[in-house]
């Protein structure tokens, strides 16, 4: 059915280099399987092992990298279903590349509903198979987006000294989106950003945890006074956000300053993920992490320096656990002494402080006092 539909679509004019690489990967994988069967040997697929045990972190590279561990999945009664699903998802990928289309993870799951017995029962099943394929592709320098499986989530808001160059997919016309001209609104990052180009005179990118803080800085055009680009993450940054920040900072050689809550979640989840990626998805970090990122604040030291003590909340048990985990098990935090010290200070203080806590000193204290003070002394940033 999917095949029939596909044939109705207009043929793609031209394939990009990455698209060609993608198609080669899919075809060669299928070829190997078929040859193996012809030789009456049970075929097998080799995937990188996706777990912390197969991850390494080097300061020099700046992100969690996949190790050399591979697991071979031979075809057997145990694996036949998974095997079939893997190949069918790859076939689907081929079709989408050829037609310049994409599918969200949820859509991919629904597409399988037409596969009869082979369909996925729950989305976690299809997600897991997709992760395997992604890991396989990552060995060839290809990301899931290259395979045309896009995340569901959009990419957060952007405002400030940036012109984004996109093209109208239908007409081919070049589109210049000026992020200084969004008024109180902002630009929403699409869920794939590979094709975007940038123009900017900004000095740095400010990645902000909360929408509220972003709105304040945008409303008061902080990007003008600060000469920067504002990006709202809204919690742990999505793939598209991370890739967007990464490509922007790489292209334009811009430093990235991260402005999040001073708590183990802001530090060990939001910032760590943005900067070095995550351990159990190490196969994608080479595309998605932002090694140039630095931690502007709120730092544990800031709580004292800016007298936020009475606008804090006590650390919860889960916070303490998270911080201790980071100290003991996380290669990133273990590799950076300043972070060790900062996390210990945080634990000793026993409280967390949000970005908005600065509002205690007045709503615009953050723009008028805090950020200028911090930017004047970049040594107060954490690595």
């Amino acid at each position, binding site marked *: 059915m999917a095949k029939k539909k596909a044939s109705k679509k207009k043929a793609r004019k031209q394939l990009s280099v990455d698209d060609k690489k993608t198609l080669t990967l899919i075809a060669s994988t*299928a*070829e190997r*399987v078929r040859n193996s*069967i*012809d030789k009456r040997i049970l075929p097998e697929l080799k995937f990188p092992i996706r777990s912390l045990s197969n991850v390494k972190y080097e300061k020099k590279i700046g992100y969690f990298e996949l190790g050399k561990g591979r697991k071979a999945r031979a*075809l057997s*009664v145990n694996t036949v*279903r998974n095997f*079939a699903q893997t190949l069918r998802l*790859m076939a689907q990928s081929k079709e989408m590349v050829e037609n310049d289309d994409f599918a969200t993870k949820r859509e991919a799951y629904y597409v399988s509903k037409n596969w009869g017995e082979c369909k996925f029962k729950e989305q976690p099943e299809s997600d897991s198979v997709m992760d395997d394929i992604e890991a396989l592709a990552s060995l060839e320098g290809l990301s899931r987006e290259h395979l045309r499986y896009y995340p569901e989530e959009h990419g957060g808001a952007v405002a400030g000294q940036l012109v984004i160059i996109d093209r109208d997919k239908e007409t081919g016309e070049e589109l210049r989106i000026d992020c200084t001209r969004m008024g109180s609104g902002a630009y929403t990052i699409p869920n794939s950003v590979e094709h975007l180009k940038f123009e900017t005179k900004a000095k740095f990118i400010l990645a902000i945890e909360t929408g509220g803080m972003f709105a304040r800085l945008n409303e008061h055009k902080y990007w003008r006074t600060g000469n920067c680009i504002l990006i709202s993450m809204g919690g742990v940054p999505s793939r598209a956000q991370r890739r967007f920040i990464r490509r922007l900072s790489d292209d334009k050689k811009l430093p990235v300053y991260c402005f999040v809550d001073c708590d183990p979640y802001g530090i060990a989840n939001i910032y760590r993920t943005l900067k070095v990626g995550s351990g159990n998805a190490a196969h994608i970090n080479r595309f998605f992490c932002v090694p140039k990122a630095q931690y502007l604040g709120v730092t544990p030291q800031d709580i004292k320096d800016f007298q936020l003590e009475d606008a804090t909340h006590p650390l919860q048990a889960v916070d303490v656990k998270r911080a201790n985990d980071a100290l003991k098990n996380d290669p990133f935090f273990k590799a950076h002494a300043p972070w060790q010290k900062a996390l210990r200070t945080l634990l000793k203080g026993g409280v967390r402080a949000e970005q908005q806590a600065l509002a205690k000193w007045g709503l615009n204290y953050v723009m008028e006092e805090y950020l200028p003070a911090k930017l004047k002394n970049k040594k107060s940033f954490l690595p």
Partner: protein
Amino acid sequence: MTQPSDTLFELDDSVPKKSSKQASKKAPRRKDTSASAARDISVAEFFEKNRHMLGFDSPTKAILMAVKEAVDNALDACEEAAILPEISVELTQVSEKVFRMAVEDNGPGIPDTQIGKIFGKLLYGSKFHKLSQSRGQQGIGISAAGMYGKLTTGKPVVVRSKTKRGRAVEAVLSIDTLRNRPEEHSREFVSWEGKSQGTRVEIEMEASYKKGQRSVDMYIKQTAIANPHLTLHYTEPGGAGITYERATKDKPAQTNEIKPHPHGVELGRLISMLKETGCRSLSGFLQEEFCRVGPTVAKKIVEAAGKKLSLKSYPTRIARDEASSLHKAISETKISSPPTDCIAPIGEELLLRGLKKELEADFYVTATRPASVYRGNPFQIEVGIAYGKPGGVGLELEETGRIKKSKKVKVDATEDLVANADEPARLLRFANRVPLLYQQAGCAITKSVVQTNWRGYGLSQPGGGMPVAPMAIMVHIASVWVPFTSESKEALAAYPEIIKEVKLGLQECGRKLGTYIRKGKRLKREYDKREYIEKYIPHIGIALQEILDLTNPQRDETVETLAQVLKAAPRSPRGLMSEFGWYLLFLFAWVFFQSLWISRLAKQVNNLQEQLEARGK
């Protein structure tokens, strides 16, 4: 202090004495209102007032207790006389609240002189003073049932009995509670057609009849399980009869009475035994009054007891302090365990037959533990497990290795002793072949079941309680003296030795059950996996066709080849043995190797010790 004049009025029964001078036989209690007059209390009076202690605390329970006592007595009588028992139990509803129970056996009958005391006197019986395995032991049960009947309906007990050589006698009697002695209302010879010997008891009582886990029906059914040599006819009130046929004609092994074991005797008891003995030397006393004491052991004991005692010491003259030394010496001397021919277990084979006959399940296992000892009393534990509703696992392996679905067996739910899959397992408790239906929570057997780790055998055991499984667990204790927690004989006291043995028995059965369950689970997995092949191979073909632009014949050929390859090697070694698997295999091998090593070493140690002992002697 003594009032010999009173004794002239007595018959052969113990009659309460009064310290007042009043001597009217008719009304011994009237007018005796002096508040401080202390007096004897007849044991019958005591239990009449406290009949809940004997289990007669509700009408539902009373009828069960009565049937139980009557059937227990009948079975004991048959076994003592080496008769293959055939017993009938009949319940009839007389009025709304009154039922009549009739229990008849083919036992040896009761000698004329004994009928009265057996049915009309509490604390009278042949089993209390012996150390030998029997159902009854206290001499209370059946008389108490009669007493309860009399108390609630005013009607006496009707007993009919015929011994092999005598004529059939029918006696109508009740218990004179004030004096704890039988009161015979009538006794006459009767003709009892077609009966060569046997006893029949009829008691009318206030009762209520209900079905369920703790009903007469359940008692009857479980009795049939624990006594596979018994044929049992049962007629419920107004209902049709049902017969449980015997599964074997082999009678339980005859058991011997034993003498007490020295290690089970307390100091006070030892002192009275010394005083009561007819032996004239300490050596003789030790060898005569106890089991497992021969000349050597007696010598060892006396030597350990210190200088004041010798083998020739005259027992009745041994003073308390010396007795105390003697007691200490006994406890410190190594003495073999008591002989175990005094107990007759049901046996693994017969227990299995009993379970299969009455419980429908997929899997049965039984275990009879070696005899053991608590407080000097030998006992033996037997465990049986019936697992799985028929058709529960639902798969079996053909001889050719193919797996197929097994046929479903229809189960009558009301008759089912095996729990449902989502219920706690049913526990059937037996003591000397008698089912225990009440006070499950307070019983040592229950404690043992709960303390066993059933998770290790693949069952769930939420909150560390009873395992939850389609299962019935049967536990039987055979002993010369069963340590009940109360006179109503409903639960075992928690002696650590008993709990240990029950747990060992449960573990023995549990391990076999675990193997069965794992096998069932494995079969199911394999079956499911083969189905997979047929389902999913075509999709590999479709995907390859889409990616490689194959023609339909090319695709079908690939699919065909793949199916062949996959079926020829249904389990790829890698699929079975991931890297992880190899580690495991290696570890297992290592463990196995080590255990061989250990057992060899243990044997060596044993040998050496034995040699050493031999030389020591």
